[in-house]
């Protein structure tokens, strides 16, 4: 059965580690993104993730495969949470198992960045003052002729956590 990469329920990290498998691996890199209580100076009460689920799932699976290929690592596993999340809830988990730590760290960072920049997932923040907003993100159009492909078409993604 194909493993889920999107989850409407809280995500458990431990089963994703596959500690009972991959005996050839001596490195495990784990990134867990959690919901932060502030964004660009505003106090966040909770947030909601929505997605174009068929495409988001495909993009995440492609990122898993591309990361395995690029870094030569046997196991890359990503799960992104959807729905209503509270402060501290797990938003994304990325696990990489690798023979050695260097490629585990590098592959994990690459995979998380690729999902954030490419998967059609949106974050709507609800602030303590009662207002809400969608976090400004990365344009995933690949046919914008007037923009060189190397330039950054997105805003301050590094601040999104």
């Amino acid at each position: 059965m194909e493993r889920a990469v999107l989850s409407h329920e809280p995500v458990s990290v431990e089963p994703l580690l596959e500690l009972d498998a991959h005996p050839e691996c001596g490195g495990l890199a784990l990134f867990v993104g959690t919901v932060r209580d502030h964004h660009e100076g505003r106090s966040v009460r909770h947030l909601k993730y929505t997605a174009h689920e068929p495409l988001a799932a495909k993009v995440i699976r492609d990122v898993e495969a591309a990361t395995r290929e690029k870094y030569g690592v046997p196991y890359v596993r990503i799960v992104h949470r959807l729905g209503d999340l509270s402060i501290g809830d797990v938003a994304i988990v990325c696990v990489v198992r690798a023979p050695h730590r260097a490629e585990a760290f590098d592959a994990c960072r690459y995979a998380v960045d690729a999902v954030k920049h490419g998967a059609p997932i949106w974050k709507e923040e609800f602030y303590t003052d009662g207002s809400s907003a969608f976090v400004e993100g990365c344009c995933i159009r690949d046919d914008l002729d007037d923009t060189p492909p190397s330039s950054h078409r997105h805003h301050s993604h590094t601040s999104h956590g």
Partner: protein
Amino acid sequence: MTSIVFELFASLESLAGARTCEIDAGEDIRTVGDALALLARERPTLASALERCACASGDTIVRRADPLPADGRIAVLPPVAGG
């Protein structure tokens, strides 16, 4: 006369106040780009946001120059912010 169904996500859904938007289209609407131009004309509140939107049909990205999907449905995807 055929109609095109636009599926609106995130900030676009908020702007439109609806999850989908159905617009009657004439024979001159042949590409995804034609359809988006029609959407911009019929829903001016969305027009300025569309430039930075990608489009999808099913689980596949479609480009402005691609033909209109056979099922007449186009998902319109604003800039993304997962993670």
